[in-house]
């Protein structure tokens, strides 16, 4: 996260507090305490609910940033802060460098018309409009002519595979089709920052997987910056460039999928990765040892550092001695013991 270019989204010391006079209470608590936990305690003592506490992160342009947490962890509140559906109680949110907490109403409307798009868990479709009218609505509010907006809507409707259903009403569609409409509507303005609030959680597993794959295709085409909310660790690992794990309103860890699976910062995060098939998400590099001082046997199953653990283990099934790991040029970069490989893959049981 170095570099001088402005991040697409940055949040600094972001707070969202619910209750009477929450904003002033937060200001007061912040001036009295230095530590976020103490601030939260002070707020709770007043009967207020700090739903998002001192959140800091940056999302690079074109990055797919997943926020994961259980229900009640504050992830939905957080995304509503960033999209300004809820005015944040305190802190700073910048989108493409622009401070949007202090933005005027008119500026927010303009941002939503050009820059921001959002997909909702329960789709949020307008029940009185057809598919085409739903998708074209963000253009309609801008006063764009009917013909032009229909043409543009048609493009995205085709992109999400709903061609031929333009004149249906939401109630006539299946859950998966409804969410396709939601996705199309959020894309119709060519947004550069895309919020998705648990978009696939309300769908059954088969449809969910299908939509995840299509979503990755769309993302590969459009390269928008994405903030994606989910409570499903497998979904997070499958889609994310980076994952932020939230608990009780705080972000407890931010990292790549492999980081989260192999180096959980605490038991809470470990608990999540417990049932995860790590072999698919972690690579050889994360468990190998350095070549210095570690000998290896005669067998060379041809391990590469970016191989997944599953693939590596498949090649070492019959082996017991340590084996070499090489890069694409054949240079030795590490040594790995097949026993360690197997151990890393084991679904963790409770440990003290």
């Amino acid at each position: 996260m170095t570099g001088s270019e402005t991040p697409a989204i940055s949040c600094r010391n972001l707070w969202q507090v619910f209750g009477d006079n929450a904003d002033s209470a937060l200001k007061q608590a912040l001036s009295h305490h230095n530590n976020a936990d103490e601030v939260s305690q002070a707020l709770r003592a007043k009967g207020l609910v700090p739903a998002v506490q001192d959140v800091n992160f940056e999302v690079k342009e074109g990055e797919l940033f997943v926020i994961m947490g259980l229900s009640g962890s504050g992830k939905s509140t957080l995304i509503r802060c960033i999209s300004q559906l809820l005015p944040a109680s305190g802190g700073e949110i910048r989108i493409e460098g622009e401070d949007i907490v202090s933005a005027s109403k008119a500026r927010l409307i303009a941002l939503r018309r050009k820059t921001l798009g959002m997909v909702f868990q329960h789709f949020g479709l307008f029940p009185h409009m057809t598919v085409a009218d739903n998708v074209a609505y963000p253009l309609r509010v801008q006063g764009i002519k009917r013909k032009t907006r229909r043409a543009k809507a048609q493009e995205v409707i085709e992109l999400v595979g709903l061609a031929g259903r333009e004149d249906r009403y939401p109630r006539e569609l299946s859950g998966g089709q409804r969410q396709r409409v939601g996705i199309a509507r959020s894309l119709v303005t060519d947004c550069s920052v895309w919020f998705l609030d648990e978009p696939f959680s309300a769908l059954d597993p088969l449809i969910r997987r299908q939509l995840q794959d299509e979503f990755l295709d769309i993302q590969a085409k459009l390269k928008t910056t994405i903030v994606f909310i989910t409570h499903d660790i497998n979904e997070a690992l499958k889609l994310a460039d980076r994952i932020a794990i939230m608990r009780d309103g705080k972000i407890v860890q931010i990292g790549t999928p492999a980081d989260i699976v192999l180096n959980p910062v605490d038991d809470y995060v470990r608990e999540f990765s417990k049932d995860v098939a790590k072999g698919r998400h972690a690579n050889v590099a994360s468990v190998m040892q350095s070549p210095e001082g570690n000998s290896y046997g005669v067998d060379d199953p041809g391990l590469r550092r970016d191989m997944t653990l599953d693939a590596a283990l498949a090649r070492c099934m019959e082996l017991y001695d340590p084996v070499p790991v090489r890069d694409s040029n054949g240079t030795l970069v590490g040594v790995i013991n097949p026993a360690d490989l197997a151990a890393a893959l084991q679904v963790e049981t409770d440990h003290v």
Partner: protein
Amino acid sequence: MSNALAARGLGKGALAALIAGVVGAFCLLFEGLWPWLSSYPNDWVLPASDAVGTAVKSGLDYVKPAARVFSTLMAYPMTAANTVLAVLPWPLLIAATVALGWRLGGGKMAAMAAIGLGLVLASGYWQQGMNTLALVAVSVPLALLAGAMIGIFANEFPRFRAPVQALLDVMQTVPTFAYLTPLLVLFGFGPVVGLIASAIYAAPPMARNVLLGLQRVEAEVKEAGVMSGGTRMQQLFQVEIPAAKVQIMVGVNQCLMAALSMVIIAAVIGGFNDIGWEVLLTMRKAQFGPAMLAGSVIVIFAILIDRMSATLAQERRRLWDGRISLAILLLGLVVSLVFWRSLGDPDSYQLLDPVANGLDSWLTDFTRANAELLTSFKNGVMFYVLLPLRIGLDQAILPFTWGFQWTSGMSLGFYAVAALVALGLALRGQLTLGVVVLIAAGILETGVSQLPWPFVLIGIGTLSWVAGGYRLALLSVVLLSTILVSGLWDRALLSLYLSGAAVFACAVLGGGVGVLSAVSPMAWRLVRPICDMLQTIPLFVFLIPVLMVFQIGEFSAFLAIIAYAIVPMIRYTRQGLIATPDEMIEAATASGATRWQMMRDVRAPYAAPTILLGLNQTILYAFAMLVIAALIGTTGLGQSIYLALGQADVGLGISAGAAMAILALIADRIVQGFAEERKKALGL
């Protein structure tokens, strides 16, 4: 909560009952010594209604010029609507209605419109009917507009939501007649008063439904509107209002029905040749055949308006082929043109007069032939139920009525039996019930209308405390005290007695029918259309049949109130009982419960909150009807309001109306409180 209290000795209910019982006993024991305990002395009455009258009148004087201008302005659309409906030939009007019926509901609705309006034409009340419709046609747009604006306003400014809701509550609980007096002073005699009253009365249901609809729009749909980049106006009019359409249409339907009901009630002012006036006139002349006929015209209008507008609120409504509608309209036009000269005055089509006269004479014969039976039924209910309740056993039991004289010895014996029962219950651990039995005995001995005022204040106060805590108790006591000091106390107790008796009867009868309908689908098939019918008929019409058979008096009023107020009790009881989740039924069946055990242990407790809400509705309906029933002879607040209207006595009208609203409000809050508590206990 109640367990914790019980552990400390007494439950909340038992404590409340004990306090009320002790106050009541104290009042009864010492009323000889301090007579002010039993009847509130006149010297303590503040001249509140006079003061209110003067204050309001001087206030009204300020607005009067503006009101008169408004009145003049409103006369234009009214005259216009009147003229249009009067000038258009009836074949065209009928064709237009039938065409609309077809468009909204297909052949069934078209046939309904044709038959309905055909009957209206044949009744000879076409002109009066059109005059009523003209009033509705002008007042409804006013009410819709005002209601929608209030609803949107409350939605946009959440901090005003609570006060607006309270205002709507008041607008709907203040009895309909009570509106009329100040409006009469303000706008002068004439149909405009009925117009404004009906707009005021019909706006709240619209406002409520608009607000409810807007609030019920899914949060994510609203958020999608925001994220699409709409301005607030765009969000409201392009997303939220269309998404709330079904609920708003429910409001339109209720608004129409309320407007019609009020327009007819407003006919008591007179001066406008409409159908309500016709009913009143024929009723006063005891011409029950024509009264029935005119009443049927009102019922036909009500049914047509209700069923047609109800299609607007259907979730997935379809419109029927518009070309057929157009054809029907054309046919009407052609018929009107071809037979222009021979159409004549629609009022001359008095085809149903023989029916009316036949009905009239049949009815006279019937009442004459069965006079003995009817009188003994009426007297039975009066002497053995209503009178004891009203003036107590000690005064109601006379040789003339019961065949013997009630003595103080009997009183003592009566109390002794009650005390024994109470003691028995208390020993079995049901202290609350025991004390309630004792209190009930006291009320029966004294009579509701002669209850000592400290007992009523404390009793209702403690009941409020049990239902809704200290705040509700305080509210009840303060509001009741205002009635006490305004000098309307005795009349309020009379109203309380009559509506109480009617509500009790509704609860027993309606509850029974509700249970039956829940158990037997056959019974429900029979009961349901009757309920639908009773709910569509405007209040006013209920008076005609009871008056025909039982003449003017408290008993007729009692019956009319029951007929109107019983419906919610039936509906909610059935609804509550059949809504038990299947899983619970299956669990009970698997545990081996019999049908009766299932009803008692599973269905009834689960239905309790719903049934309480039904009771709440029944109480409010009973209060509404009580005022209308003043037309056929009740004592109490309703009568005061009606008298005030006749004398244009603003002070009395407003005070009595407010007292009525206070009673309704307190009853509403108490029952709602109990319903909430039951809901919480069930985790709903």
